[in-house]
């Protein structure tokens, strides 16, 4: 009897209820801090935010009962923490964000409906790859510039960040491509200086599409995405072929390219200088990262509590772009080291579940797809957190599920949908609950 109750969906429900409790108390905390009063409005916000997850849970119960029970609650927890902080910064933004979470859930549902057997995607690999490059090309041609980086396309009153979607599409392309050509790349027949080099025709499509993507990203100064795409490319190549040559060569090429960029391009050099000593330009390019470090330091071990940190001066945030790129710093202020480390562990859980799905899957495409998606998500979070903690030079990229931004939220729910599909298939095959 007990055993029957331990189905993946029941576990998911329990996890989601935990997240709901955190969400409600978080919104309450912000409300109490702001108005010194408990108000039903805060519960309304929490409810509004949680409703899509309830719907997604019910949908998965019916359509994908065997899917991984931790992914959705993790995404819910991440977006709940993000939503609470966004609400704390600006309630109007929070309303928009919860709308995007709703849209994201819809996209998740659609993805699950279409690709409950993820192998169906393999046939679409070139479509996905070309679509990704076209999306990035559109950014270059039609993009509007924000903070020196051209990442957005204006459609009516919306701003779309195509890079977030291209990321998922490129992983799909790569998984499909490597499924077909992986063997040739692993055991090339041609040898140059006793090192196996695959024939050109097996390499050209891969390098052409990824190369185009990287060139387009560099063209719009989107260094965060460039780094992310490149890392995903190398990681998937490694998983597919197991050849250190590709990874080593890739890292060497990136180092040479990076060094050349630092020497050649003034704005890249400025970025590196700011990274090394932001206080030299404390009122200019160093300002953001300095404020970020001050905020993180302010949090201490347990933080100020939701809604009580030094986040706003009047209606302006202390750190510019606090709700997007620097949301991690705000979380570190209000929840301290405990909360920040907890947040990172949630990402690690997602990565772990994603890679577990990859290892359980019985077909190469699903393996590569799940591994690529999980890595992309985990590495994206790494890049931005490393940026705002001055571990790496700062690059503008969203913290998945947490940062404010429709494109990011929607694309990552699409990514989550694909992971759920992959897990359901793997779990069904393994024949366990």
């Amino acid at each position: 009897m007990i055993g029957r109750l331990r189905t993946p969906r029941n576990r998911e429900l329990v996890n989601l209820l935990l997240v709901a409790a955190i969400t409600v108390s978080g919104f309450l905390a912000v409300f109490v801090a702001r108005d010194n009063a408990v108000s039903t409005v805060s519960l309304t916000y929490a409810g509004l935010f949680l409703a899509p997850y309830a719907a997604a849970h019910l949908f998965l119960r019916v359509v994908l009962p065997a899917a991984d029970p931790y992914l959705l609650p993790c995404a819910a927890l991440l977006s709940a923490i993000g939503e609470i902080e966004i609400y704390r910064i600006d309630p109007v933004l929070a309303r928009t964000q919860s709308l995007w979470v709703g849209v994201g859930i819809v996209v998740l549902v659609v993805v699950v409906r279409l690709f409950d057997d993820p192998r169906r995607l393999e046939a679409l690999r070139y479509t996905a790859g070309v679509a990704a490059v076209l999306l990035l090309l559109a950014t270059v041609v039609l993009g509007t510039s924000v903070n020196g980086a051209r990442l957005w396309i204006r459609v009516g009153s919306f701003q779309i960040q195509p890079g977030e979607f291209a990321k998922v599409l490129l992983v799909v392309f790569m998984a499909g491509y490597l499924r077909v050509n992986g063997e040739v790349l692993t055991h090339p027949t041609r040898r140059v200086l006793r090192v196996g080099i695959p024939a050109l025709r097996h390499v050209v499509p891969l390098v052409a599409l990824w190369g185009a993507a990287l060139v387009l990203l560099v063209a719009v100064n989107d260094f965060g995405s460039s780094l992310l795409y490149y890392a995903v490319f190398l990681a998937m190549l490694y998983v597919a072929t197991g050849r250190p040559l590709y990874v080593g060569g890739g890292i060497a090429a990136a180092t040479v390219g990076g060094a050349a960029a630092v020497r050649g391009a003034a704005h890249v050099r400025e970025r590196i200088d700011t990274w090394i000593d932001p206080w030299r330009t404390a009122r200019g390019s160093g300002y953001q990262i300095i404020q970020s470090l001050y905020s993180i330091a302010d949090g201490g071990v347990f933080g100020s509590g939701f809604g009580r940190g030094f986040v706003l001066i009047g209606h302006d945030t202390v750190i510019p772009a606090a709700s997007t790129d620097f949301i991690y710093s705000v979380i570190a202020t209000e929840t301290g080291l405990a909360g920040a480390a907890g947040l990172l562990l949630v990402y690690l859980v997602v990565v772990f579940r994603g890679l577990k799905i990859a290892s359980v899957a019985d077909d190469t495409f699903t393996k590569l797809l799940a591994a690529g998606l999980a890595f992309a998500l985990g590495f994206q979070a790494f890049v931005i957190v490393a940026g705002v903690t001055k571990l790496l030079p700062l690059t503008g990229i969203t913290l998945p599920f947490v940062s404010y931004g429709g494109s990011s939220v929607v694309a990552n729910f699409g990514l989550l949908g694909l992971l759920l599909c992959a897990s359901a298939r793997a779990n069904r095959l393994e024949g366990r609950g």
Partner: protein
Amino acid sequence: MNARIGRLLLALALAYVVLIATTSYWQLWAAPSLDARRDNPRLVFRQLAIDRGRILSSDGRILAESVGHTANGRTIYRRRYPSGSLASAVVGYASIGASEAGVERAQDDVLSGASLNLGDGPGLIGTLAGRTVRGDDVVLTLSARLQEAATRALRRTHHRGAVVAIEPSTGRVLAMVTLPTFDPNLVDNGFATLLSRRDGVLLNRATQGLYPPGSTFKVVTAAAALDGGTITADTTFPGGSCITVFRPLCNASGEVAPNPNSLADALVQSYNTTFARVGQQVGRSALYDELLRFGFGSLPPFDYPTAQMTSSGVYTAPGRLAGRGTQLDVARVAIGQGGLLVTPLQMAEVVAAIANGGTMMAPHIVDRIRDRSGRLVVATVPQSLGRAVSATTAATLTAIMRRVVDEGTGQAAQLGGLEVAGKTGTAQTARRGLNDAWFIAFAPASAPRIAVAVVVEDTTDYGGVIAAPVARDVIRELLGGG
């Protein structure tokens, strides 16, 4: 392929461990130094959230207070100085972004509530919870009435300068004037302008200004001579207008000292020639010891920011004080020249010690600290710094200084019905023809209640002419008399 996926997980897990380590570094290790950085906006925010205590004069005048106004559920406090420039050098300022000075700085812990125990009030925990921290009030020994009188009297000279008035028996600083001065209400928005002014308005001349003491120092020389035992007030010395010590050393205005003249007469008439001889007779070592007993050579033990005080003494180079072994031109030091530079506070301490029968009292500006409901938190207990001169010497000097005012160079300080004791001083400055004019005094001579030091910068007048009336007005304000 699963082994590679495992390695991918390991790589990402390691990367995340580094992220957690980096975050820990900032939050635990680097946090205190980041928190203390001047450009950290939290500093301003924290200051603004504090309801700083008031600073009051001994006669109840509010010199500094915090005024709160509430916006968005948060109360922000701004510092106001209702008495403007009245005692601005003493009170100082607590400005957002322009640091602190004066009592605002010296008593910052008290005023900002930082010295409160956690058990006593909201303290740090309260700040974190968004509650207002209320600092305690500081009541000064300074009398606003006397301060006004001293300012008025010094202003009348139309020169820069300083006045320090001390209660000899306790060391209470009753007035401390420095001119020109500033309005601390302007510090928040006009600090750069105040800083860039050439006349040094932010300088507290009373504690930082170094002036040659001129003939006022003869009191110290006489004290060393009388304490030494071989010279008495009646010991006589040869007369004349000049003697030669390396080069001619003459009396003021070419005056000829009678032959012979006594130590007492020489102090009353301020003969340089006699005191140069006295100095030589006392000797370098004894004179140096006397300087130390009066507190020269180190910062005064005054409850005021050390950054705003300067040591008095013989300077061999800018910023370098002579030590025990340093060769001094003892004849010129004895008449208040020869590299000797003093602050008005130091000279006030000297004259207060003589007034107090030879015992130095630590000068202090804070009388007591009260909490916001008016309850006494702590009161300053007058503290003796030990004997500078013997009681007999102090009595002898008092008698001679009475004569200075009655019949000597300090007659401008006479107040009908009041026994005023004093000594004039006129020190040549580097600017040709201009003097720093001094007067040190106390009254009533038999039971002194006030000791005053006055310096007037860059004047063509003698101390007895321009500085003595200032001291007289300050004494009159406290003690009355014609």
